[in-house]
């Protein structure tokens, strides 16, 4: 009978191994093995570690100003959208920054539309800085989830010598990045992002860059959205008025980066925004608390009803939102629909 028991155990183990494994939000970052893998591919481990740290910190500690061209692609169903703009980026090396949109090259639009877009871009500069532009949000997670290859190519961007790095997730999901990095400062002077199918997603390249320039005329970015930091763990009812749902099943490699509260301007209701990262990409889960009055999530067609999630894909981004169990929830990220729905389910369990 022992043989039968062992057989049963082996089969059970095999099937369990094939099942999806949820990654808890509190998994420890900085796997030594993967760090070694990344480091060995890059060459010298100490230099690699300091380079990644420099890239992560570069925008905060470097005083610079430059003009860059940004190209963005979004797929909305079968329709592909392409936009190109130029912007001036400034940073004082102490955390202050500004992204001033200079012109929208594509798509063509009327003067009033152009002026409105430029004005709205100035309101979005904080999100562009934090979430649109390539940056390493957590070096430990980056080393755990990403593989970096130094191609050996030496180039010059905006008059500055750069090295070329290929950055991709070790599990071969997500975007592929080709970065041209000023190794002296760690600034990413050119970033080319494409999908696993090698479809271009975005490209940014500095046309000019000046280190330690005169920044006396710069109008620095000011927070406009009343976003307030919250404790990463612990009850929040006293702070935000409700106990936020917790997403327990995250896509592989993601961990909680921060929790904040934001105000929805239309009805002044409060949301708790949990931002997760795999080191580079960001994933957001927002909980707006229970529906009060008429502040439930609205939609086009069909109207969002109770316990119904509406999924919208603007590739590479996916958005899932709904009024679930009388709670308002939104999840968005550069991940699959299945990952977002799994995250939403885990928050309701």
């Amino acid at each position, binding site marked *: 009978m022992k*043989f039968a028991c062992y057989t049963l155990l082996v*089969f059970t183990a095999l099937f369990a191994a094939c099942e999806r494994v949820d990654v*808890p939000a509190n998994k*420890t970052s900085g796997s030594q093995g993967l760090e070694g893998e990344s480091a060995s591919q890059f060459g010298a481990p100490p230099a690699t570690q300091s380079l990644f740290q420099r890239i992560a910190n570069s925008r905060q500690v470097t005083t610079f100003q430059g003009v860059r061209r940004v190209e963005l692609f979004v797929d*909305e169903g079968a329709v592909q959208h392409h936009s190109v703009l130029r912007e001036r980026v400034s940073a004082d090396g102490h955390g202050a920054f500004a992204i001033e949109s200079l012109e929208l090259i594509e798509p063509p639009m009327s003067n009033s539309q152009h002026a409105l877009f430029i004005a709205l871009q100035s309101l979005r500069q904080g*999100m562009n800085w934090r979430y649109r532009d390539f940056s390493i949000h957590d070096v430990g997670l980056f080393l755990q989830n990403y593989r970096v290859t130094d191609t050996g190519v030496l180039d010059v961007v905006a008059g500055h010598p750069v090295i070329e790095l290929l950055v991709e997730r070790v599990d071969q999901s997500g975007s592929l990045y080709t970065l041209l990095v000023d190794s002296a400062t760690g600034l990413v002077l050119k970033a080319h992002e494409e999908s696993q199918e090698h479809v271009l997603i975005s490209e940014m390249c500095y046309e000019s860059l000046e280190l330690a320039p005169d920044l006396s005329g710069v109008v620095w970015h000011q927070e406009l959205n009343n976003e307030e930091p919250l404790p990463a763990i612990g009850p929040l009812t006293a702070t935000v008025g409700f106990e936020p749902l917790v997403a327990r099943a995250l896509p592989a490699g993601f961990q909680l980066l921060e929790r904040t509260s934001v105000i929805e*301007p239309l009805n002044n209701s409060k949301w708790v925004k949990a931002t997760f990262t795999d080191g580079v990409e960001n994933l957001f889960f927002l909980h707006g608390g229970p529906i009060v009055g008429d502040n439930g*999530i609205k939609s*086009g067609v069909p109207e969002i009803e109770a316990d*119904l999630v509406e999924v919208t894909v603007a590739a590479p981004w996916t958005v899932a939102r709904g009024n679930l169990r009388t709670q308002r929830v939104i999840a968005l990220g550069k991940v699959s629909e299945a990952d977002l729905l799994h995250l939403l389910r885990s928050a309701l369990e």
Partner: protein
Amino acid sequence: MSSGLPIRPDCQVARELLVERIGSAGNLLASPREFHCSACQVWFERSLAQARALNALPRRIAELHSLDGLVVAELNAGCRQERAAAALTSLERVDAPCELDLLVSEYLGRAVHEAPRELDQRVAKEISAGAGLRAERQVSALERLAAPAALDAIVGRALTQSARPHGLPLRRWIAVAATLFVVVGAASLVRQAGLGKPKPSEFRVVHTHSVASLDPFTRSLLSGVTGGAIELAAQNRGTAR
């Protein structure tokens, strides 16, 4: 591409004064005695004509009321944010007083020992696990008691009496293995089909193929993380990559 705004600041000032001469009904409140330049004069005449044309449009108040919410949503709660941004950007930077600098330096100089992140995570796990984890820890910490010798002797005698001189025949083992294989395989199929376990927080899912259906809040979030590409998408439909 031109922004449509006057290039010269003095023109801008002159035109702002000219606008005040146009009434809310599109009428001319007072004719300007002179214009700053010929371009300003052309601009003023065009603006006056536009104001009259706009005022002559039939008003559909009821529909306008229903559009208010959409307009506000589209413009991020009206122009408040733009006005706030303009007001903020026009402010001069005020240096912090020396006393504040000293206080901040003093505060930063203190040795702030925060708990390591892993500790936070472990505490969160402990809290979220509930009583199960503590019960498991308590049970595993119990001292294992040895069975009394008399019980060992009884079990030994019983095993000796029930022991068979020969093991199961080979074909019996094959039958057992085959049965196990079928049972485990069926269990795995049931498991993969999602049967046999409680449905976790089910909800219906619908798909939309346009960001136009997004509510203003979600749309503004998506616009932020995509660098405004979503806003442009609405005016850029069909451009081939």
